[in-house]
């Protein structure tokens, strides 16, 4: 179910003095099975863009095509399209409300009118995806859990709808290192095992380096660069000029290059860098 965004423009407060262009002629296409990262500083239009992808906002102009169908077209069944595109907002745990974890996760499937057996199956599937043991957590109150666990319950609620595409806005914000790692591992598995297309907005370049197959870089409502993490992180000047960091490993390479070392431009994974540095050291001590 590819997603295509065509000349998308969005203005807030249209027709008033506060009119702000949040997205300015944005176009891109996401194929099935991709893991796309969207990066950009606050106010660059990332969250506005994400809300267009399941029809929460309507374009001022341009189109969002899901599987070739215009999401905002007149005869489109938006409900069905939305079910297939799961959107996880920032701090989704604030939206938990039910008495038990299982009931909260079941909320979406229940509204769809599924049978009790099907609902139960969905809840078990979703809890398994987010690594929450059914027997241990299903009957617990979501409000007794840790922040990271609550967030996983909220994500499970979206996964219970069995979306083909999962969109997440800053899924690791505010979590401790363990909570962060759990979410990232879970996304990695969802992508690899369940073949869910993932679109993730994040400020963490190190997370992006680890997970994304492609990056879209936004600045001031426009796409300023697109490519593999390798291509994007090699352009540290461009990234710095729009106020973004590159992963620390890429910064180390840049620092060493500035000292006169020749290192490949696309080195940003710590393991690869480690091998390079060891080679450099062994060559040095050999002579």
């Amino acid at each position, binding site marked *: 179910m590819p997603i295509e965004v065509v000349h998308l423009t969005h203005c807030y407060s249209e027709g008033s003095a506060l009119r702000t262009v949040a997205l300015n002629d944005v176009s891109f296409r996401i194929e099935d099975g991709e893991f796309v990262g969207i990066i950009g*500083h*606050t*106010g660059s239009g990332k969250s506005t863009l994400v809300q267009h992808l399941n029809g929460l906002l309507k374009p001022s102009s341009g189109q969002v095509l899901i599987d070739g169908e215009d999401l905002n077209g007149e005869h489109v069944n938006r409900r069905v399209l939305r079910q297939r595109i799961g959107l996880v907002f920032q701090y989704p745990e604030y939206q938990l409300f039910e008495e038990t974890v299982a009931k909260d996760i079941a909320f979406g499937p229940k509204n769809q009118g599924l049978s009790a057996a099907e609902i139960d199956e969905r809840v078990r599937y979703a809890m398994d995806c987010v690594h929450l043991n059914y027997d241990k957590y299903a009957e617990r109150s979501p409000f007794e859990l*840790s*922040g*990271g666990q609550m967030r996983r319950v909220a994500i499970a609620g979206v996964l219970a709808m069995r979306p083909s595409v999962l969109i997440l806005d800053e899924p690791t*914000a*505010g*979590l*401790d*290192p*363990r*909570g962060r790692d759990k979410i990232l591992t879970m996304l990695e598995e969802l992508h690899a095992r369940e073949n869910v297309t993932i679109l993730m907005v994040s*400020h963490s370049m*190190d997370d992006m380096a680890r997970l994304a197959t492609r990056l879209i870089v936004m600045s001031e409502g426009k796409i300023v660069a697109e490519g593999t993490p390798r291509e994007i992180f090699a352009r540290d000047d461009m990234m710095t000029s729009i*106020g*973004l*960091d590159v*992963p*620390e*490993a890429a*910064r*180390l390479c840049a*620092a*060493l290059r500035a*000292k*006169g*070392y020749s290192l490949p431009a696309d080195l940003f994974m*710590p393991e690869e*860098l*480690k091998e390079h*540095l*060891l080679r*450099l*050291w062994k*060559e*040095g001590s050999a*002579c």
Partner: protein
Amino acid sequence: MLSDTRVQVADVSFSYDEQAAPALSGVSAVIEPGSFVAVLGHNGSGKSTLAKLLNALYLPTEGNVVVCGYNTREEKYVWEIRQRAGMIFQNPDNQIVATVVREDVAFGLENLGVPTEEMIPRIESALSAVRMSSFSDKAPHMLSGGQKQRVAIAGILAMEPSVIIADEATAMLDPSGRKEVLETIRALNRQKGITVIWITHFMEEAALADRVLVMSDGEIRLSGKPAEVFDRMDEMREMHLDVPHMTSLAGELRAAGMPLRPGILTVEELAEEVERLCPLKSST
């Protein structure tokens, strides 16, 4: 009494309720005036409980907390303590009370009954210290997260505190907001000598502190300079904590035989070590 601006935590235990395991047990620490101390620990390790004990939001079940000479157990000193040890929280939207920035900064002073003519210069100087003077007439909801946190800091500064306690004050900010808040607080620490107790999940922030306290299961497990603490990588990971990326890379290189010096925290430090160990060959 005023001369003692230390924060002393002596053998403090704290339980939220009698049945549950204590959130803190036997915690002792002395925070020296003017120091910048980072507190690390996974969720539920007791960091926030400790923070709330430091300005008398909670009282110890056992032991004593003494802030600038005042024991938090003595109820009559609560406002003295809260004025001297101001606290910033995680969510910028939960700490703003007024509809205009300058009024928000005035809130604490109004509660203290500071006369208006004294209030105005204090507000102005607090806003200028966090570089928010040009926003003093703006509505707080129009500000970015980082700007809101700086207004929250100004509100505390106006009270002329000796200590600022920040409980994950950057957790909800983007990288540029995080940087601006951290730079603001570091400048206040260095220029005004305000003691900072900085609770964080970001190892890179802790790397900038004078001292790091690492908490786990309600106890202080490690304490020392950032370089010392982060070199104990295995212990940190056992407590479900990271170390800065460069410390971790340096650790792996060391394990593979490269004789890097201990205590590497930053890109610059590792680059220098690589330069020392692998000198460039000038002829080739």
